[in-house]
Structure formats: structure tokens, C-alpha cells
């Protein structure tokens, strides 16, 4: 399956892209995707512990199973306002 990953704020700067498509094996979770991204973009590792996870614009837990064409966003601590 393929998922879209969008990057914002510090993650976009670390990755150097606003959006990528990622091929994953069926049954992959959000945590699996994050592990794969860290291998591809080692600069992502230092901010790992403070992330939240959104799939199709809803917050989910890291063990959430992904489906084909999901939109995944990793959310560092927010600072709006």
C-alpha cells in the first residue's frame, strides 16, 4: 500500500520536503512508518519522543494500522496562539 506523509514546521525543515509518498507493507502501523522515515531521514530521530500522530486529520495512537492512501502527519508539540 501507499500512504501520503505531509511534513510541517521543524519536520519539513529536517526532511526537506512538504509531502512524500511512501510504499509500505500491508498491516504497517504509524509506528512502523515512523521507523522507516527515521532510517531515510536520520535528522528526524532527535524529536521522536514528543510526537503526536494524525491519520486523515484525526489524532491516533502509534499502533494505529494504516490503510492504502491514508494521509499521515507527525505532529511535534504545537505552539500556535
Amino acid at each position, binding site marked *: 500500500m501507499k500512504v501520503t506523509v*505531509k511534513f*510541517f*514546521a*521543524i519536520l*519539513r*525543515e529536517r526532511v526537506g520536503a512538504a509531502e512524500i509518498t511512501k510504499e509500505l507493507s500491508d498491516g504497517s502501523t504509524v509506528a512502523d512508518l515512523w521507523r522507516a522515515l527515521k532510517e531515510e531521514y536520520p535528522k528526524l530521530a532527535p*524529536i521522536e519522543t*514528543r*510526537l*503526536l500522530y*494524525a491519520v486523515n*486529520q*484525526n*489524532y*491516533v*495512537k502509534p499502533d494505529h494500522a494504516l490503510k492504502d492512501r491514508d494521509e499521515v*502527519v507527525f*505532529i*511535534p*508539540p*504545537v*505552539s*500556535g*496562539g
Partner: protein
Amino acid sequence: MFRVVRTPLDIHELVRYVTEASAGAITTFIGTTRNNNEGRKVIALDYDAYPEMAEKELRRIGDDAKKKWNIERMAIVHRIGPVQIAEASVMIAVSAAHRDDAFQACRFAIEEIKKTVPIWKKEVFEGGEVWIGTQTGQPLSEADLRQRSS
């Protein structure tokens, strides 16, 4: 009215939106770029957002506020992109029959925005820049997260 925009904010627009014949009180909150932060001389803030989800979370804040207080209308508009000193990054307006509800709902909205809405600010200061929150911020608690993802 729950929006993420790239243009300067207009308090008139929000106040007009929440004005109601059945309301006797309107409260607003405006967040502006302060020229200093933790001893640094701030030049500007630069906001980024996950816009679709941010607007969805802003609406969720409005829905939660309506459940908690007897309010008429709420508007929240957050600006993204560069926001210069003394310019507004966020505006909230709430109308209610009585002022206590309007004050409490307005305060609730800004506190929630700072906790759950996917918007981030980069502080551009003399000598560097930094994404605020990333260094020191706490993520949502497990309890918050359960609530959010339900």
C-alpha cells in the same frame, strides 16, 4: 467562523460575525507578536500549520465551548506565515447573553489552541531562529489523546 489564513487579521470581522441581538456580551482575545521572549530580542514570528486539521480542531474547540457554556457564537481565526512585531497571529471572539460565559469560553479557546491545534511558530530573533515548543513542549497526555481520537 474557524479559519487559518495567510492575511492580516481584522477584529471587526470577528466581532461582526459573533454579534447577535440575543447577546449582551462579546469578549475577544488577540495574540500579538511580542518584541521579546525569554531574554531574546524577537524580530518576527513565522507560523506554519496543517491547515485542514487545524481548522477542524478550531471547530472542535467551538463545539466544546458551546457544550460547556451558554454562548451564542464563536469565531477563531489564526494567521500563518510571517507575523511582525505587534501584529496579530490569532483572534478569538465570543458572544453570550451574559459576560461570565463569554469570558470563560474565550479563555478556554486560547488555552485549547495552545494545546491541541496543529499550528507551530518559529521565532526569528537576533542571532538565530527556533521552532517554539519543539525543545520544551509537552505532548498531549494519554488521557487527552484518548479523548481526541475518540
